[in-house]
């Protein structure tokens, strides 16, 4: 046994974290999302079972596999119709640069998808470049504007976020620039804390009234989404459905953030895999599965993740971090600037600093210029289209003429945990290990 053996409990990273807290007197705040090694059940623990003899696959390039996605059919007069089931989640102008917000809007529009405003209100350029824009109503109500709400295609009432359920957002002073301070009605350069709760309602009973208000404000035209951070998903989804949601968004613990305490990112919430399973179960148990649409978010990386989420019951998926990566997040360019903020390409989670080397999570005009809007939009469009193609490939291989026809039976579980969570058989068995 070497005397140089390191502790498994007080590993080098733990020692560094403790000493950083002791030095600074502050808890760690950062962006990006959980950095933990993935030891919890994920979509990687599922595998598709494409057709062989018992089912007939569709030809990849010859036979139709629809990706059209309609959301908000329960009460809204004008449900939103998207060409694809992969959407861009809400990320604020403030956390993101102007160029990033516009690039996301243009990219989503070019792919026939939607984008969402975020915790800082709507940018006019965002509306102008969106095909389908979802307007988020968050606890902070930063930038709340009825005129913006009334030109949106859907309203998303956000209760929580997967990366930090139960707490509000943060925008550190380096990002509260002139324009952001004006948009959010804040003093310049403050470390902005968002409230954890909405200012004018508390529980699910009051939320019923709030949903009615949003419907009255938008003349019952557009769908009302309710977004939940994944915690007590089974109960929360039922309550959101009772409150009158057309669409419920569940954001798993793998979801991203522009800035929040690291301890929330690492130690709160349910994995996205568990979230989608609980959400479907809840809607089925109240007879609203298929009536209330379900969107799943949180660490969705590619078409396989999205297809598995859809097979488990989601009507569509949100992507956030993956879309930023398409914009060059963590790309090995401007490496000096990564180093200057204590990061490196592929290991940058320094969105909170406002010094994003690739111009995405910054308000610095010079850094922002590094993100070319047109090129960024094209990459976002490409990613959305490729992810959709991947979903279609898997769906066709499973014999489905519509990506929404994917079902749990199209998959097997690679681990006992995934079998128990998803209610699908463990590979090598015909058993469902369900509680």
């Amino acid at each position: 046994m070497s005397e140089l053996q390191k502790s498994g409990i007080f590993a080098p990273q733990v020692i560094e974290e403790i000493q950083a807290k002791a030095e600074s007197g502050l808890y760690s705040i950062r962006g990006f999302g959980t950095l933990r090694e993935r030891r919890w059940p994920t979509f990687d623990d599922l595998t598709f079972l494409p057709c062989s003899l018992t089912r007939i696959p569709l030809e990849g390039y010859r036979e139709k596999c629809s990706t059209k996605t309609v959301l908000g059919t329960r009460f809204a007069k004008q449900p939103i119709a998207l060409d694809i089931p992969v959407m861009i989640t809400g990320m604020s102008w403030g956390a993101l640069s102007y160029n990033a917000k516009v690039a996301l809007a243009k990219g989503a529009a070019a792919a026939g998808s939607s984008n969402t405003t975020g915790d800082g209100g709507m940018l006019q350029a965002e509306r102008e470049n969106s095909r389908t824009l979802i307007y988020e109503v968050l606890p902070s109500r930063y930038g709340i504007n009825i005129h913006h709400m009334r030109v949106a295609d859907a309203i998303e009432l956000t209760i929580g976020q997967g990366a930090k359920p139960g707490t509000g957002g943060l925008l550190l002073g380096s990002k509260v620039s002139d324009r952001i301070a004006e948009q959010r009605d804040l003093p310049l350069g403050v470390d902005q804390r968002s409230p954890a709760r909405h200012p004018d309602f508390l529980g699910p009973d009051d939320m019923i009234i709030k949903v009615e208000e949003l419907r009255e404000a938008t003349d019952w035209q557009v769908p009302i989404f309710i977004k939940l951070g994944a915690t007590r998903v089974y109960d929360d989804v039922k309550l959101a459905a009772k409150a009158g949601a057309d669409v419920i968004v569940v954001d798993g613990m793998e979801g991203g953030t522009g800035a929040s305490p690291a301890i929330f990112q690492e130690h709160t919430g349910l994995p996205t895999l568990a979230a989608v399973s609980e959400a479907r179960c809840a809607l089925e148990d109240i007879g609203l599965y298929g009536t209330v649409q379900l969107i799943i978010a949180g660490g969705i990386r590619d078409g396989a993740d999205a297809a598995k989420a859809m097979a488990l019951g989601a009507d569509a998926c949100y992507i956030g971090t993956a879309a930023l990566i398409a914009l060059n997040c963590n790309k090995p360019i401007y490496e000096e600037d990564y180093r200057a903020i204590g990061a490196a390409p592929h290991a940058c989670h320094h969105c909170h600093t406002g010094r994003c080397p690739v111009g995405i999570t910054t308000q610095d005009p010079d850094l922002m210029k590094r993100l070319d809007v047109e090129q960024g939009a094209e990459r976002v469009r490409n990613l959305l289209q490729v992810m959709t193609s991947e979903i279609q490939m898997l769906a066709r291989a499973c014999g489905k003429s519509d990506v929404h026809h994917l079902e749990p039976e199209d998959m097997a579980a690679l681990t006992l945990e995934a079998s128990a969570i998803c209610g699908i058989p463990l590979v090598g068995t015909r058993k469902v290990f369900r509680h």
Partner: protein
Amino acid sequence: MAEIDAAGRSTRELNSAIRRLIAESSKEITVRNPGARHNLAVAILDEVHILVGGSVGYYCGGLIDGASIEIEGSAGWGVAESMLSGTVRVHGNVGSGAAAAIRGGTVVIHGDAAARLGVSMKGGTVIVAGNCGYMAGFMAQKGTLIVCGDAGEAFADSMYATTCYVGGKIANLGTDAVLAPLDSSEAEQLEQTLTCYLPPSLRGAKPAAADFKKVVAGRKLWNFDKRDWRIWQEAL
């Protein structure tokens, strides 16, 4: 003046009727028998005066821009929430979260306000002739909050740049709330505001503007600082 009888009609029908009258160029609309219904007259974006002849539930006058809403009774939670401009006047009392997140306009309450008056307000002016409950002004960002009577506990907690004035007693100040001197020009402006918005019968009974206490943020929560650990312990 156009009149709508709310008795037996749904919120949807009533708001549709209000919008229809506005589209027909009505500038004065009276809603009779509101029956404490929620969500009356929300998101009205025209310069119209709507008189509600009784009490209302949640969110009356919420999300308006430019309208004038007058409620002859009391109002439930979130009256005038997120308004951009206009006036909301309540002759009675209001529930929690009155004027929450307003970005402009004026909210005048003749009676008392419950908890979290002006929470997260981002502009505008809120005037309460009576008393207010706990945590008024919580996380308020801009604008002016005036309470002529007494203020409840944790007043003006965790604020950014809202200015508060209290004519009566303050049960206690919230985290980072501090008393600030009220100079003569401010007192004069305050007096003008009160005289402008409160009827003489209410204004006459209240302290002179110069006797109001001014409360602002101490700015210790504006930026993280490890030396303020205890204040953050309480704030978070």
